[in-house]
């Protein structure tokens, strides 16, 4: 049967129905959000992309104008929280704003991950305003192949 892909993911409930997790994620995203008064008009800030690896997951988020020190990442079990703030640019008294579209203020976003992650091995990089977080699945949680012996 060629109906099912044969990667390791097909054995994992998350990857067997990735859309279930995505829908759940979307709901989390829609709910878990930041007060609107923070200045961000979107339902979810920052916008996040999620990538799947063999035993890990990577998240990328667009955070232009932030400094690495302004971003706080917390991981607990299967929950990831990204928070931070971008301050308004400082201008002189006589300055006149013609256009102000770039959001400023605090944000916090909590994301439910598809599996428990090893908090010790989380790696985060920040480059050109794009944050990348790599989260590993603990070895004991990884799906195991079970050999079937013939009688």
């Amino acid at each position, binding site marked *: 049967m060629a109906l099912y892909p044969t990667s390791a993911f097909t054995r994992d409930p998350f990857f067997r129905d*990735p859309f279930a*997790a*995505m829908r759940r*994620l979307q709901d989390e*995203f829609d709910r878990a959000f930041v007060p609107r008064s923070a200045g961000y008009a*979107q*339902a*979810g*800030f*920052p*916008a*996040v*992309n*999620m*990538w*799947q*690896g*063999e035993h*890990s*997951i*990577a998240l*990328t988020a*667009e*955070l*232009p*104008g*932030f*400094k690495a020190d302004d971003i706080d990442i917390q991981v607990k079990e299967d929950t990831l929280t990204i928070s931070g703030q971008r301050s308004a*640019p400082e*201008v*002189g008294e*006589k*300055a*006149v*704003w*013609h*256009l*102000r*579209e*770039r*959001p400023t203020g605090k944000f916090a976003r909590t994301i439910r991950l598809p599996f428990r992650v090893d908090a010790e091995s989380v790696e985060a990089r*920040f480059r*050109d*305003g*794009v944050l*990348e977080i*790599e989260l590993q699945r603990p070895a004991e949680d990884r799906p195991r192949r079970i050999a079937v012996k013939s009688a």
Partner: protein
Amino acid sequence: MTQDVVKKNQSQGNGNAEMAGETTRGHPVFRPFTDICETEGGVVIAVDMPGVGQDDVDITLEKRVLTIRGRRQRKTPEGYRLAYAEYEEGDYERVFSLSDEIDEANIKAAVQSGVLMLELPKAEPAKPKRIEVKAA
């Protein structure tokens, strides 16, 4: 003093609005969120362009039309494939028409942490010429 020449529809994303049109590279083009502030000495423009480095920005000023372009290098973390997406990686483009004369030789531009900062100093104003009316 400034006016957005190209109007496009707003859409979701991180400060990035809707596509401007098709490019030959097959990427979407976004209208980036921008701050424009006028001071006594000139105009300061800040443009959110996440994923764009110092070398990927192209700025032109021609006949008071300022065009800002940023090319984003698409990046896939190695060994990963995209499972869920809220934003798309694309290029950035925005055009402004400036009403004041700008001292083109002294424009400063820098990209830091995905934000383009542009400083456009005003040109020395031409001295008003006074014409005296003599009584006949």
